[in-house]
């Protein structure tokens, strides 16, 4: 069984994002970028399935600029077998990503497409669901545990108030939640081996899908700064203050 793992190059989770002065987006010039943490969890889960003998090949795919190669190399260093880069400098929205992934899935015929539930840059949380709809295949989103048995995959989903268990017939789409696993670090020997693993580069046009943006970002702004609280001397002052604010 083959697993397809899409990975996205995003602003590093340790970086404090800064909004561009003109409000057109987040300033990414000279900012550290790395693999979307939810995608790292997806790569890790795919590797664990392979180590458990449930999968035999892991293909990592990324859609983005030439630099997204680094993200794919990280996936290869962690344990993916080969990688495909769909190179584009355009902004590709979740629907566009899902269309390209559908085309790749038709070529590669994976048993599972394992995606992060969302990317930490735009927090869309849409690609996996859109892909499932476009492919007409079952989806197990927000995976907390994943078990493969024969031609089905059982996913425990993180839902409000607990876990929901769904059994999907493969091919299936799984999106990973935070608590599914703790991704490994790419070791130096594996980083070196990853250099020799195949990485194909293609263009969106190779798949003949329309990825023109449907959405327009009108403005991006910093979250409002939290106002400082007031300190009062005693209980009487507190009560008076609350009354003056009309909350008591």
């Amino acid at each position, binding site marked *: 069984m083959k697993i397809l793992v899409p990975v996205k190059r995003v602003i590093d989770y340790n970086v404090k994002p800064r909004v561009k002065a003109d409000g057109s987006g987040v300033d990414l010039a000279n900012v550290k970028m*790395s693999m979307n943490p939810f995608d790292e969890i997806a790569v890790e889960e795919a590797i664990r399935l392979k180590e458990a003998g449930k999968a035999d090949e892991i293909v990592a795919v990324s859609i983005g600029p030439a630099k997204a190669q*680094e993200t794919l*190399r*990280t996936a290869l*260093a962690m344990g993916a077998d080969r990688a495909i880069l769909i190179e584009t400098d355009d902004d590709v929205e979740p629907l566009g990503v899902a269309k390209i992934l559908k085309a790749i899935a038709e070529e590669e015929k994976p048993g599972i497409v394992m995606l992060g539930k969302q990317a930490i840059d735009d927090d869309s949380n849409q690609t996996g669901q859109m892909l499932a709809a476009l492919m007409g295949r079952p989806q197990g989103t927000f995976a907390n545990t994943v078990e493969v048995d024969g031609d089905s995959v059982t996913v425990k989903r993180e839902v409000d108030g607990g876990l929901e268990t769904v059994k999907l017939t493969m091919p299936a789409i799984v999106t990973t939640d935070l608590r599914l696993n703790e991704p490994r*670090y*790419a*070791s*130096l*020997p594996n*980083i*070196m081996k990853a*250099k020799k693993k195949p990485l194909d580069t293609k263009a969106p046009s190779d798949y003949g899908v329309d990825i023109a943006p449907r959405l327009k970002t009108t403005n991006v702004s910093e979250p409002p700064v939290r106002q400082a609280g007031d300190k009062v001397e005693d209980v009487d002052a507190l009560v008076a203050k609350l009354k003056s604010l009309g909350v008591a």
Partner: protein
Amino acid sequence: MSEIVSEGGMDADTFAQFTDQLKRYVRERLMPAEEQVLEDDAIPPDLLGEMRDMGLFGLTMPEEYGGSGMNVPQYIETIRVLSYALPAYRSITSINLGMVCSALKNAGTEEQKSEWLPRLAAGEIACFGLTEPGSGSDSAAMATTAKRDGGHYVLNGSKRYITNAPHAKLGLIMARTNPESMPKNAHVSAFLVDMETDGITVGKPDKKMGQRGSHIADIYFDDVRVPADALLGGEEGRGFATAMQSLDNGRLSIGAASCGYARRILDTALRYSGERKAFGETIGNFQLIQAMLADSQAELYAAECMLRDAAAKANKGKAIIEAASAKMFASEMCNRVADRCVQIHGGAGYLAEYEAERFYRDSRIYTIYEGTTQILQLVIAKNMLRDFASGAAA
């Protein structure tokens, strides 16, 4: 700062990818385990296993012997990054990566290299035995002997202050093969000794001022029979020269440890300056605190630049003056930064509850081992005078 030179080492992209992972590994795994290491006075075995898997014991071994083939600047940068965490993590890898690896690379026979380098790269721990109760760098007084007996050498004597001795599988041991002291230390030979050989006893680890989690101990040799092919390079009388060859790298490694740790110390001082309040404001607002922070930053930056430059020069050949200068300056700098960190912490800096106190004790060794500041002053001055006299100085 200038880029890390990749000439003769790993390609730059691979190296960058590794340092990225290592920085994360330091922050997310090694630093959270520090309390545990301090409490147990040992690195937890599973964490040590992880460090082996990460490839941290194989940085300097050539690729064909199971290592990663880093050049000097890459190795030194890696040590600097690693040294942001507790010193014990660097210490456990240091003899493998430094002294023993370069001795094997420079002087080992093909058989010795293929036997030991892959094992060292995989994380079997090595120690290096030169110092004795009655001798250090003055090898004329060396008392440990190795006497040829048919197909074997028989070792007798003792070694003192041997880093990693309690954990070592391989000992690179210096011993006298000639009772007469000879010019250029030709009476000293180096032996690759399996530390499980009969007749070897390792003493109890010494109690130290700091550097908890790393261990030094005495080693006693009592009629220890090693096969003749344990003689490094298969040639008597080359031991001391071999040891001296890798001094540059050893000094740079301590320079890197000093820079990495000083960065951690300064970050800690900065954090405290922004948190601690006195007279109604954070102490970072006070100019005398700011002066200590600024002096620390300027000196640390200078040391980092020196270290990188010296490593680039050592990559091309000998860099005795540069490596000694970088080690001397960086280790003294680290002690000044640690001292200021205590001072910025005020009373809290004297309490074991805060890290500042530990930083102060841990840093103290850096101006001592791999050449004290005073020995390095002599090395630098002697080489300058010699170069000047021979017209080599530019």
